[in-house]
Protein backbone atom coordinates (compact mmCIF):
# COMPACT_ATOMS: atom_id res chain seq x y z
CA UNK A 1 0.00 0.00 0.00
CA UNK A 2 1.60 3.27 -1.12
CA UNK A 3 -1.23 5.56 -0.10
CA UNK A 4 -1.12 6.67 3.52
CA UNK A 5 -3.80 4.91 5.56
CA UNK A 6 -6.25 7.34 7.11
CA UNK A 7 -6.86 7.59 10.85
CA UNK A 8 -9.87 5.33 10.67
CA UNK A 9 -7.76 2.61 9.13
CA UNK A 10 -5.13 3.00 11.83
CA UNK A 11 -7.81 2.88 14.51
CA UNK A 12 -9.16 -0.33 13.07
CA UNK A 13 -5.67 -1.77 12.95
CA UNK A 14 -5.27 -1.06 16.66
CA UNK A 15 -8.69 -2.53 17.41
CA UNK A 16 -7.98 -5.60 15.30
CA UNK A 17 -11.06 -5.16 13.17
CA UNK A 18 -9.37 -5.07 9.75
CA UNK A 19 -9.59 -8.00 7.39
CA UNK A 20 -6.42 -10.03 6.96
CA UNK A 21 -5.75 -8.42 3.57
CA UNK A 22 -6.32 -4.91 4.88
CA UNK A 23 -4.10 -5.56 7.85
CA UNK A 24 -1.30 -6.93 5.69
CA UNK A 25 -1.33 -3.99 3.29
CA UNK A 26 -1.47 -1.46 6.13
CA UNK A 27 1.40 -3.07 7.96
CA UNK A 28 3.41 -3.22 4.75
CA UNK A 29 2.96 0.51 4.36
CA UNK A 30 3.94 1.15 7.97
CA UNK A 31 7.26 -0.59 7.51
CA UNK A 32 8.29 2.02 5.00
CA UNK A 33 6.51 5.13 6.36
CA UNK A 34 7.89 6.95 9.39
CA UNK A 35 4.99 9.40 9.39
CA UNK A 36 2.34 6.71 9.66
CA UNK A 37 4.32 4.80 12.28
CA UNK A 38 4.42 7.94 14.37
CA UNK A 39 0.67 8.41 13.93
CA UNK A 40 0.07 4.81 14.94
CA UNK A 41 2.29 5.20 18.00
CA UNK A 42 0.38 8.33 19.04
CA UNK A 43 -2.92 6.53 18.66
CA UNK A 44 -1.72 3.55 20.69
CA UNK A 45 -0.43 5.88 23.36
CA UNK A 46 -3.82 7.58 23.58
CA UNK A 47 -5.63 4.26 23.90
CA UNK A 48 -3.16 3.09 26.54
CA UNK A 49 -3.87 6.26 28.50
CA UNK A 50 -7.60 5.70 28.21
CA UNK A 51 -7.17 2.16 29.51
CA UNK A 52 -5.11 3.52 32.39
CA UNK A 53 -7.77 5.90 33.64
CA UNK A 54 -9.05 4.95 37.09
CA UNK A 55 -12.21 2.90 37.00
CA UNK A 56 -13.34 4.32 40.32
CA UNK A 57 -14.14 7.92 41.16
CA UNK A 58 -15.76 8.54 44.50
CA UNK A 59 -18.65 10.99 44.61
CA UNK A 60 -18.10 14.10 46.66
CA UNK A 61 -20.71 13.15 49.21
CA UNK A 62 -22.22 10.04 50.70
CA UNK A 63 -25.32 9.33 48.62
CA UNK A 64 -26.73 6.65 50.91
CA UNK A 65 -29.01 8.91 52.96
CA UNK A 66 -30.57 10.24 49.78
CA UNK A 67 -30.87 6.73 48.33
CA UNK A 68 -32.73 5.39 51.34
CA UNK A 69 -34.86 8.50 51.53
CA UNK A 70 -35.82 8.00 47.89
CA UNK A 71 -36.58 4.35 48.51
CA UNK A 72 -38.75 5.22 51.48
CA UNK A 73 -40.40 8.28 49.98
CA UNK A 74 -41.37 6.70 46.68
CA UNK A 75 -41.82 3.00 47.23
CA UNK A 76 -43.36 2.63 43.78
CA UNK A 77 -43.53 -0.71 42.10
CA UNK A 78 -41.01 -3.12 43.47
CA UNK A 79 -39.41 -4.33 40.26
CA UNK A 80 -37.64 -7.09 42.07
CA UNK A 81 -40.90 -8.64 43.23
CA UNK A 82 -42.44 -8.36 39.78
CA UNK A 83 -39.38 -9.98 38.28
CA UNK A 84 -39.47 -12.98 40.55
CA UNK A 85 -42.86 -14.37 39.78
CA UNK A 86 -45.34 -11.76 38.77
CA UNK A 87 -47.11 -11.95 35.46
CA UNK A 88 -45.65 -8.61 34.48
CA UNK A 89 -42.05 -9.47 35.12
CA UNK A 90 -39.84 -6.68 33.96
CA UNK A 91 -36.64 -8.51 33.27
CA UNK A 92 -34.81 -8.83 30.02
CA UNK A 93 -31.79 -10.95 29.38
CA UNK A 94 -29.48 -9.61 26.71
CA UNK A 95 -28.35 -11.91 23.97
CA UNK A 96 -24.73 -11.10 24.42
CA UNK A 97 -22.18 -10.87 27.15
CA UNK A 98 -21.72 -7.42 28.49
CA UNK A 99 -17.99 -7.24 28.44
CA UNK A 100 -15.13 -8.12 26.18
CA UNK A 101 -11.51 -9.07 26.51
CA UNK A 102 -11.83 -10.33 30.05
CA UNK A 103 -12.28 -6.84 31.44
CA UNK A 104 -15.10 -8.13 33.59
CA UNK A 105 -17.05 -11.30 34.14
CA UNK A 106 -17.75 -12.64 30.65
CA UNK A 107 -20.59 -14.89 31.74
CA UNK A 108 -24.02 -14.05 30.38
CA UNK A 109 -25.44 -11.22 32.41
CA UNK A 110 -29.00 -11.07 33.62
CA UNK A 111 -29.89 -7.51 32.79
CA UNK A 112 -32.71 -5.82 34.59
CA UNK A 113 -34.26 -2.91 32.81
CA UNK A 114 -36.31 -1.31 35.52
CA UNK A 115 -39.35 0.21 33.95
CA UNK A 116 -43.02 0.37 34.47
CA UNK A 117 -45.50 -2.06 33.03
CA UNK A 118 -46.08 -1.65 29.32
CA UNK A 119 -48.87 0.84 28.75
CA UNK A 120 -52.06 -0.35 27.18
CA UNK A 121 -53.48 1.59 24.31
CA UNK A 122 -57.02 2.73 23.83
CA UNK A 123 -57.39 0.55 20.81
CA UNK A 124 -56.21 -2.55 22.59
CA UNK A 125 -58.77 -2.54 25.34
CA UNK A 126 -62.41 -1.62 25.30
CA UNK A 127 -62.37 -1.55 29.08
CA UNK A 128 -59.70 1.10 29.27
CA UNK A 129 -62.02 4.05 29.64
CA UNK A 130 -64.03 2.32 32.30
CA UNK A 131 -60.89 1.41 34.19
CA UNK A 132 -59.64 4.95 33.89
CA UNK A 133 -62.93 6.28 35.18
CA UNK A 134 -62.84 3.95 38.16
CA UNK A 135 -59.26 4.95 38.84
CA UNK A 136 -60.14 8.61 38.63
CA UNK A 137 -62.95 8.20 41.12
CA UNK A 138 -60.60 6.42 43.49
CA UNK A 139 -57.96 9.07 43.02
CA UNK A 140 -60.48 11.82 43.48
CA UNK A 141 -61.54 10.44 46.81
CA UNK A 142 -58.00 10.43 48.08
CA UNK A 143 -57.27 13.83 46.66
CA UNK A 144 -60.44 15.13 48.24
CA UNK A 145 -59.23 13.89 51.59
CA UNK A 146 -55.98 15.72 51.07
CA UNK A 147 -57.71 18.92 50.09
CA UNK A 148 -60.04 18.97 53.05
CA UNK A 149 -57.46 17.76 55.53
CA UNK A 150 -56.54 20.55 57.96
CA UNK A 151 -52.90 19.63 57.57
CA UNK A 152 -52.98 20.20 53.86
CA UNK A 153 -54.91 23.42 53.55
CA UNK A 154 -53.60 25.69 50.84
CA UNK A 155 -54.02 29.41 51.24
CA UNK A 156 -54.91 31.82 48.50
CA UNK A 157 -52.75 34.46 46.94
CA UNK A 158 -49.04 34.80 46.31
CA UNK A 159 -47.05 31.86 47.55
CA UNK A 160 -50.08 29.70 47.91
CA UNK A 161 -48.14 26.68 46.73
CA UNK A 162 -45.86 26.81 49.72
CA UNK A 163 -48.27 28.20 52.29
CA UNK A 164 -49.39 24.83 53.53
CA UNK A 165 -50.13 24.46 57.20
CA UNK A 166 -47.51 22.11 58.58
CA UNK A 167 -48.49 19.10 60.63
CA UNK A 168 -47.71 19.60 64.29
CA UNK A 169 -46.00 16.34 65.16
CA UNK A 170 -43.73 13.81 63.53
CA UNK A 171 -46.55 11.30 63.67
CA UNK A 172 -48.81 13.68 61.77
CA UNK A 173 -46.13 14.18 59.18
CA UNK A 174 -45.82 10.44 58.78
CA UNK A 175 -49.56 9.98 58.47
CA UNK A 176 -49.85 12.79 55.97
CA UNK A 177 -46.99 11.46 53.91
CA UNK A 178 -48.65 8.08 53.75
CA UNK A 179 -51.71 9.75 52.28
CA UNK A 180 -49.64 11.65 49.76
CA UNK A 181 -47.82 8.48 48.77
CA UNK A 182 -51.11 6.73 48.22
CA UNK A 183 -52.58 9.57 46.20
CA UNK A 184 -49.55 10.07 44.00
CA UNK A 185 -49.18 6.34 43.43
CA UNK A 186 -52.74 6.14 42.22
CA UNK A 187 -52.19 9.05 39.88
CA UNK A 188 -48.91 7.60 38.66
CA UNK A 189 -50.62 4.32 37.87
CA UNK A 190 -53.29 6.14 35.95
CA UNK A 191 -50.69 8.18 34.12
CA UNK A 192 -48.81 5.03 33.26
CA UNK A 193 -51.88 3.75 31.50
CA UNK A 194 -52.21 7.02 29.65
CA UNK A 195 -48.61 7.72 28.77
CA UNK A 196 -48.74 6.09 25.37
CA UNK A 197 -51.29 8.73 24.40
CA UNK A 198 -48.98 11.60 25.28
CA UNK A 199 -46.43 13.19 22.93
CA UNK A 200 -42.90 12.00 23.74
CA UNK A 201 -41.80 15.56 24.46
CA UNK A 202 -44.53 15.92 27.05
CA UNK A 203 -43.59 12.62 28.66
CA UNK A 204 -39.96 13.74 28.76
CA UNK A 205 -40.78 17.04 30.42
CA UNK A 206 -43.15 15.36 32.84
CA UNK A 207 -40.63 12.74 33.85
CA UNK A 208 -37.92 15.32 34.30
CA UNK A 209 -40.15 17.40 36.55
CA UNK A 210 -41.17 14.36 38.54
CA UNK A 211 -37.54 13.45 38.94
CA UNK A 212 -36.76 16.90 40.29
CA UNK A 213 -39.67 16.77 42.70
CA UNK A 214 -38.78 13.26 43.85
CA UNK A 215 -35.27 14.40 44.54
CA UNK A 216 -36.54 17.35 46.52
CA UNK A 217 -38.83 15.02 48.45
CA UNK A 218 -35.96 12.69 49.23
CA UNK A 219 -33.81 15.55 50.46
CA UNK A 220 -36.59 17.02 52.55
CA UNK A 221 -37.39 13.63 54.06
CA UNK A 222 -33.73 13.03 54.83
CA UNK A 223 -33.44 16.42 56.47
CA UNK A 224 -36.59 15.87 58.47
CA UNK A 225 -35.36 12.48 59.61
CA UNK A 226 -32.42 14.28 61.16
CA UNK A 227 -34.61 16.94 62.74
CA UNK A 228 -37.99 15.41 63.56
CA UNK A 229 -40.55 18.02 64.48
CA UNK A 230 -38.87 20.84 62.58
CA UNK A 231 -41.86 22.87 61.44
CA UNK A 232 -40.10 24.50 58.50
CA UNK A 233 -38.91 21.19 57.13
CA UNK A 234 -42.36 19.71 57.61
CA UNK A 235 -43.86 22.60 55.67
CA UNK A 236 -41.35 22.18 52.87
CA UNK A 237 -42.02 18.47 52.71
CA UNK A 238 -45.77 18.93 52.52
CA UNK A 239 -45.44 21.70 49.95
CA UNK A 240 -43.24 19.47 47.81
CA UNK A 241 -45.80 16.69 47.98
CA UNK A 242 -48.38 19.23 46.88
CA UNK A 243 -46.21 20.06 43.89
CA UNK A 244 -46.04 16.44 42.89
CA UNK A 245 -49.72 15.91 43.42
CA UNK A 246 -50.56 19.00 41.41
CA UNK A 247 -48.32 18.00 38.53
CA UNK A 248 -49.76 14.52 38.38
CA UNK A 249 -53.31 15.78 38.60
CA UNK A 250 -52.68 18.21 35.78
CA UNK A 251 -51.06 15.58 33.61
CA UNK A 252 -53.78 12.99 34.11
CA UNK A 253 -56.57 15.52 33.76
CA UNK A 254 -55.17 16.85 30.52
CA UNK A 255 -54.87 13.40 29.08
CA UNK A 256 -58.33 12.24 30.01
CA UNK A 257 -59.87 15.57 29.24
CA UNK A 258 -61.50 16.37 32.53
Amino acid at each position, binding site marked *: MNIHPDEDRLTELVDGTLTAAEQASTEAHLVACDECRAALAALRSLIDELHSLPRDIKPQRDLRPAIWAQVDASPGTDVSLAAVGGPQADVQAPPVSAVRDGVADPSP*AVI*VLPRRAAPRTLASSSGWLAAAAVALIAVSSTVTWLIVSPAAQVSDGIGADVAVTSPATAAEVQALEARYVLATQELEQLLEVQRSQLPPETVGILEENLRIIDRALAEAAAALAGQPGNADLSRILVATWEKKLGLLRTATALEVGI
Partner: protein
Amino acid sequence: MRLSVERPADLVTRAQAGDRGAFDRLYTEHVGHVYALCLRMTADAERADTLTQDAFVRAWRALASFRGQSAFSSWLHRLTVNVVLEDVRRTRRREQRVQTVDTLERHDTAGALADPESRVDLERAIATLPDGARAVLVLYDIEGYRQEDIACMLGIAVGTVKAQLHRARRLLRGRLSR
Protein backbone atom coordinates in the same frame (compact mmCIF):
# COMPACT_ATOMS: atom_id res chain seq x y z
CA MET B 1 -10.30 -14.50 67.79
CA ARG B 2 -11.25 -15.51 64.30
CA LEU B 3 -11.88 -12.87 61.73
CA SER B 4 -14.50 -13.65 59.14
CA VAL B 5 -14.46 -12.03 55.73
CA GLU B 6 -17.86 -11.84 54.17
CA ARG B 7 -18.00 -12.86 50.54
CA PRO B 8 -19.67 -10.49 48.07
CA ALA B 9 -22.24 -13.18 47.31
CA ASP B 10 -23.21 -13.29 50.98
CA LEU B 11 -23.73 -9.55 51.00
CA VAL B 12 -25.96 -9.82 47.97
CA THR B 13 -27.96 -12.62 49.56
CA ARG B 14 -28.44 -10.62 52.73
CA ALA B 15 -29.40 -7.53 50.77
CA GLN B 16 -31.90 -9.57 48.78
CA ALA B 17 -33.47 -10.53 52.09
CA GLY B 18 -33.92 -6.86 52.91
CA ASP B 19 -30.76 -6.20 54.91
CA ARG B 20 -30.00 -2.53 54.31
CA GLY B 21 -26.68 -2.78 56.09
CA ALA B 22 -25.53 -5.34 53.56
CA PHE B 23 -26.68 -3.12 50.72
CA ASP B 24 -24.80 -0.21 52.28
CA ARG B 25 -21.64 -2.28 52.09
CA LEU B 26 -22.34 -3.14 48.46
CA TYR B 27 -22.76 0.58 47.87
CA THR B 28 -19.41 1.32 49.48
CA GLU B 29 -17.73 -1.30 47.37
CA HIS B 30 -19.21 -0.32 44.03
CA VAL B 31 -20.12 3.35 44.19
CA GLY B 32 -16.79 4.46 42.76
CA HIS B 33 -17.24 2.56 39.55
CA VAL B 34 -20.90 3.49 39.22
CA TYR B 35 -20.17 7.16 39.79
CA ALA B 36 -17.20 7.18 37.41
CA LEU B 37 -19.38 5.79 34.65
CA CYS B 38 -22.15 8.30 35.32
CA LEU B 39 -19.72 11.21 35.48
CA ARG B 40 -17.87 10.36 32.30
CA MET B 41 -21.01 9.56 30.34
CA THR B 42 -22.81 12.76 31.28
CA ALA B 43 -19.90 15.17 31.80
CA ASP B 44 -22.05 16.67 34.53
CA ALA B 45 -21.14 16.20 38.19
CA GLU B 46 -24.56 17.09 39.58
CA ARG B 47 -26.27 14.79 37.12
CA ALA B 48 -23.81 12.04 37.98
CA ASP B 49 -24.86 12.31 41.63
CA THR B 50 -28.51 11.94 40.70
CA LEU B 51 -27.93 9.05 38.33
CA THR B 52 -25.72 7.22 40.81
CA GLN B 53 -28.49 7.61 43.34
CA ASP B 54 -31.07 6.38 40.84
CA ALA B 55 -28.92 3.40 39.91
CA PHE B 56 -28.66 2.22 43.50
CA VAL B 57 -32.36 2.80 44.15
CA ARG B 58 -33.17 0.70 41.11
CA ALA B 59 -30.63 -1.91 42.12
CA TRP B 60 -32.27 -2.21 45.54
CA ARG B 61 -35.69 -2.63 43.98
CA ALA B 62 -34.46 -5.12 41.40
CA LEU B 63 -32.20 -7.17 43.65
CA ALA B 64 -34.50 -10.17 43.75
CA SER B 65 -34.11 -10.58 40.01
CA PHE B 66 -30.34 -10.94 40.36
CA ARG B 67 -29.69 -14.66 40.20
CA GLY B 68 -25.93 -14.72 40.30
CA GLN B 69 -25.41 -15.74 36.69
CA SER B 70 -22.92 -12.91 36.40
CA ALA B 71 -20.87 -11.01 38.90
CA PHE B 72 -22.90 -8.54 40.91
CA SER B 73 -20.53 -5.83 39.71
CA SER B 74 -21.35 -6.63 36.06
CA TRP B 75 -25.07 -6.68 36.78
CA LEU B 76 -24.93 -3.38 38.62
CA HIS B 77 -22.80 -1.87 35.91
CA ARG B 78 -25.19 -2.78 33.14
CA LEU B 79 -28.09 -1.50 35.20
CA THR B 80 -26.20 1.77 35.59
CA VAL B 81 -25.56 1.97 31.85
CA ASN B 82 -29.30 1.59 31.31
CA VAL B 83 -30.04 4.34 33.81
CA VAL B 84 -27.56 6.70 32.17
CA LEU B 85 -28.67 6.00 28.62
CA GLU B 86 -32.31 6.49 29.53
CA ASP B 87 -31.41 9.82 31.03
CA VAL B 88 -29.25 10.87 28.11
CA ARG B 89 -32.00 10.04 25.67
CA ARG B 90 -34.52 11.89 27.77
CA THR B 91 -32.72 15.06 28.57
CA ARG B 92 -29.98 15.49 25.98
CA ARG B 93 -28.10 17.64 28.38
CA ARG B 94 -25.00 19.25 26.99
CA GLU B 95 -23.99 21.80 29.57
CA GLN B 96 -21.97 22.06 32.75
CA ARG B 97 -18.86 20.41 31.41
CA VAL B 98 -16.58 22.88 33.09
CA GLN B 99 -17.96 21.75 36.42
CA THR B 100 -17.07 18.17 35.55
CA VAL B 101 -13.47 19.06 34.92
CA ASP B 102 -13.29 20.80 38.28
CA THR B 103 -14.77 17.74 39.94
CA LEU B 104 -12.33 15.39 38.28
CA GLU B 105 -9.42 17.55 39.33
CA ARG B 106 -10.50 17.37 42.93
CA HIS B 107 -10.84 13.62 43.04
CA ASP B 108 -8.29 11.23 44.42
CA THR B 109 -5.90 10.34 41.66
CA ALA B 110 -4.55 7.18 43.24
CA GLY B 111 -4.14 4.55 40.59
CA ALA B 112 -4.31 7.08 37.83
CA LEU B 113 -1.74 7.84 35.19
CA ALA B 114 1.83 8.31 36.30
CA ASP B 115 1.47 11.98 35.38
CA PRO B 116 -1.64 13.40 37.10
CA GLU B 117 -1.63 16.40 34.79
CA SER B 118 -1.91 14.11 31.80
CA ARG B 119 -4.90 12.42 33.35
CA VAL B 120 -6.65 15.70 34.07
CA ASP B 121 -5.99 16.86 30.52
CA LEU B 122 -7.38 13.61 29.19
CA GLU B 123 -10.49 13.75 31.40
CA ARG B 124 -10.99 17.35 30.37
CA ALA B 125 -10.77 16.44 26.71
CA ILE B 126 -13.19 13.53 27.13
CA ALA B 127 -15.68 15.82 28.86
CA THR B 128 -15.71 18.18 25.88
CA LEU B 129 -16.46 15.49 23.30
CA PRO B 130 -19.86 15.50 21.60
CA ASP B 131 -22.36 13.34 23.51
CA GLY B 132 -22.52 10.45 21.07
CA ALA B 133 -18.79 10.21 20.55
CA ARG B 134 -18.15 10.48 24.28
CA ALA B 135 -20.64 7.72 25.13
CA VAL B 136 -19.06 5.31 22.67
CA LEU B 137 -15.52 6.15 23.76
CA VAL B 138 -16.32 5.71 27.45
CA LEU B 139 -18.13 2.42 26.91
CA TYR B 140 -15.48 1.00 24.58
CA ASP B 141 -12.09 2.39 25.58
CA ILE B 142 -12.64 2.82 29.31
CA GLU B 143 -15.37 0.38 30.29
CA GLY B 144 -14.42 -2.38 27.89
CA TYR B 145 -17.71 -3.21 26.23
CA ARG B 146 -17.71 -4.78 22.77
CA GLN B 147 -18.74 -2.70 19.80
CA GLU B 148 -21.68 -5.03 19.12
CA ASP B 149 -22.94 -4.60 22.68
CA ILE B 150 -22.57 -0.84 22.50
CA ALA B 151 -24.57 -0.82 19.30
CA CYS B 152 -27.37 -2.71 21.09
CA MET B 153 -27.28 -0.40 24.09
CA LEU B 154 -27.37 2.78 22.06
CA GLY B 155 -29.73 1.48 19.41
CA ILE B 156 -27.35 2.27 16.57
CA ALA B 157 -25.51 0.26 13.94
CA VAL B 158 -22.09 -1.21 14.63
CA GLY B 159 -20.76 0.91 11.79
CA THR B 160 -22.00 4.00 13.57
CA VAL B 161 -20.27 2.87 16.76
CA LYS B 162 -17.03 2.58 14.84
CA ALA B 163 -17.52 5.97 13.23
CA GLN B 164 -18.22 7.60 16.60
CA LEU B 165 -15.22 5.88 18.15
CA HIS B 166 -12.92 7.04 15.37
CA ARG B 167 -14.31 10.54 15.66
CA ALA B 168 -13.84 10.58 19.43
CA ARG B 169 -10.24 9.42 19.22
CA ARG B 170 -9.48 11.87 16.44
CA LEU B 171 -10.94 14.75 18.45
CA LEU B 172 -9.09 13.66 21.57
CA ARG B 173 -5.77 13.54 19.77
CA GLY B 174 -6.39 16.95 18.29
CA ARG B 175 -7.34 18.50 21.61
CA LEU B 176 -4.50 16.90 23.54
CA SER B 177 -1.89 18.02 21.03
CA ARG B 178 -2.82 21.69 21.26
